[in-house]
């Protein structure tokens, strides 16, 4: 009776183990990663799944005669062998190398190697995965980043040089046209006077465009280091700088307690100054009321400049931050359309962004964010 029970129990145990074996075999065989057990002395595979040989285009019988380094060039094989020696000491490691398929194609592979004990022998448990596509897109991305930063540098240099060297001939055109007006106004016919006026006007406008371009390119080329900056001091300075237009328009500027942040101080002054100056410039019939606020959100500071000015139609909201974009006729509001483009560039140089909400005839709120490096 007892023996019979024991035999039953034994059979049951065997079945359980068979099932467990079957289960793990399935996990091993059907893995999408190649799994191998390798003898560290010969580097020949002791065991491997189908994926391992299929990946490199070999049959099971062919694959078992090949050392893991046989899939590599002599150069990388040497490195791999050395690395495996290190892994034997350290217990595990991950390496990337190139394997050749049977047809001679190269594949980037990542090998995760673990030293385990099987039947009292130390063996290498290797899982490897084809990362060729990943490597290719990584290389493509790197090429693109290199290309982009190169063309960006060139563009900045170009804008700077062009605006600098363009000043000289422009000065000649403007100055001599002004001389012509001064000395010969009324002596030629009225057409000539008008033409000369257009030359002077065109040259003067081009001058301010070039100056704008120069300022714009300087944001990138002449930026200073980021230092701890008290925004209260920045805003005080801005108000001092804008004193004349504040008095002329009767503008009222209010602000609460503003934070200390890490920034290029002079660029931050420029950023606030452009926004406050705009808030004053585009005022409605009422005298300008401007409120500056700051709040902290998602590890960044958001600053807002609210005004009660003429506002901006929704369809133009995207355009206003682009270089040389203007919404008004020159007789209405003068300007080159560079101010907000500079603001955007400064915010972006600090890792932040700039945006606007506006209701026509009621006012606008410009916001920009600056990452909080202090991590408060």
């Amino acid at each position: 009776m007892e023996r019979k029970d024991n035999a039953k129990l034994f059979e049951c145990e065997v079945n359980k183990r068979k099932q467990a074996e079957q289960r793990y075999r399935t996990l091993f065989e059907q893995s999408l990663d190649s799994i191998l057990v390798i003898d560290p002395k010969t580097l020949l595979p002791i065991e491997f799944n189908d994926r391992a040989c299929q990946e490199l285009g070999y049959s099971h019988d062919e694959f078992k005669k090949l050392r893991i380094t046989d899939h590599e060039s002599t150069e990388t094989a040497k490195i791999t062998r050395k690395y495996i020696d290190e892994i034997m000491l350290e217990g595990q490691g991950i390496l990337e190398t190139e394997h050749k398929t049977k047809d001679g194609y190269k594949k980037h592979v990542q090998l995760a190697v673990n030293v385990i004990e099987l039947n009292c022998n130390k063996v290498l448990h290797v899982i490897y995965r084809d990362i060729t596509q990943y490597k290719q897109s990584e290389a493509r991305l790197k090429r693109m980043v290199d290309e982009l930063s190169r063309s960006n540098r060139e563009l900045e240099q170009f804008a700077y040089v062009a605006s600098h060297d363009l000043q000289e001939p422009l000065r000649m055109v403007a100055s001599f046209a002004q001389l012509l007006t001064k000395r010969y106004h009324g002596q030629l016919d009225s057409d000539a006077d008008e033409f000369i006026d257009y030359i002077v006007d065109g040259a003067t406008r081009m001058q301010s465009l070039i100056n704008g371009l120069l300022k714009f390119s300087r944001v990138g080329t002449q930026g200073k280091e980021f230092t701890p900056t008290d925004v209260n001091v920045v805003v005080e300075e801005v108000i001092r700088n804008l004193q004349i237009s504040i008095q002329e328009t009767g503008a009222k500027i209010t602000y609460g307690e503003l934070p200390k942040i890490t920034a290029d101080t002079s660029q931050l002054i420029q950023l606030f100054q452009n926004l406050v100056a705009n808030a004053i410039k585009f005022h409605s019939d009422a005298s300008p009321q401007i409120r500056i606020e700051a709040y902290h959100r998602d590890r960044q500071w958001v600053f807002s400049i609210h005004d009660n000015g003429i506002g901006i139609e929704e369809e133009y909201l995207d355009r206003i931050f682009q270089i040389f974009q203007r919404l008004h006729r020159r007789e209405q509001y003068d300007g080159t359309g560079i101010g907000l483009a500079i603001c955007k560039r400064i915010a972006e140089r600090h890792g932040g962004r700039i945006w606007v909400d506006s209701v026509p005839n009621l006012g606008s709120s410009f916001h920009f964010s600056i990452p909080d490096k202090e991590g408060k």
Partner: protein
Amino acid sequence: MGNNQSEIRPVKILLVEDNPADVRLTLEALKEERILNNLLVAEDGLEALDILQQKGKYADESLPDIVLLDLNLPRKDGRDVLKQIKTDNRLKRIPVVVLTSSEAETDIVKAYDYYANCYITKPVDWNQFKTIIKTIENFWFTIVKLPRGEGNVK
């Protein structure tokens, strides 16, 4: 306006400038501002130094009262000319006004490091340019006291 002293004898100006249109503009500005002057023009840095060191055909040339110096010049750069003037014991007291279109911070710093007496960016506007020329004359020959002797207004 200049006082009696500066009206007695014309101010001798050395203008170092390679652009003939710019030279003409300076001449016109001097004329319109009625500054009595004796303008000497050097078209590059080497010529400027020849004049100042009284070399060759300039052997009989007296020293200027003031130098208006452009920075970007052919052959010898304006910065080198400035350095040479300010390290030459015979020339270093002559006021050197750097008059250039460059607004680059590095140019400004370098000019003062080499002891430029002042640095002025040329304006595009003609009236402003005239004002600047007039101001230079007024400042250096009416307001400022300079030592007597060769190279200075007596």
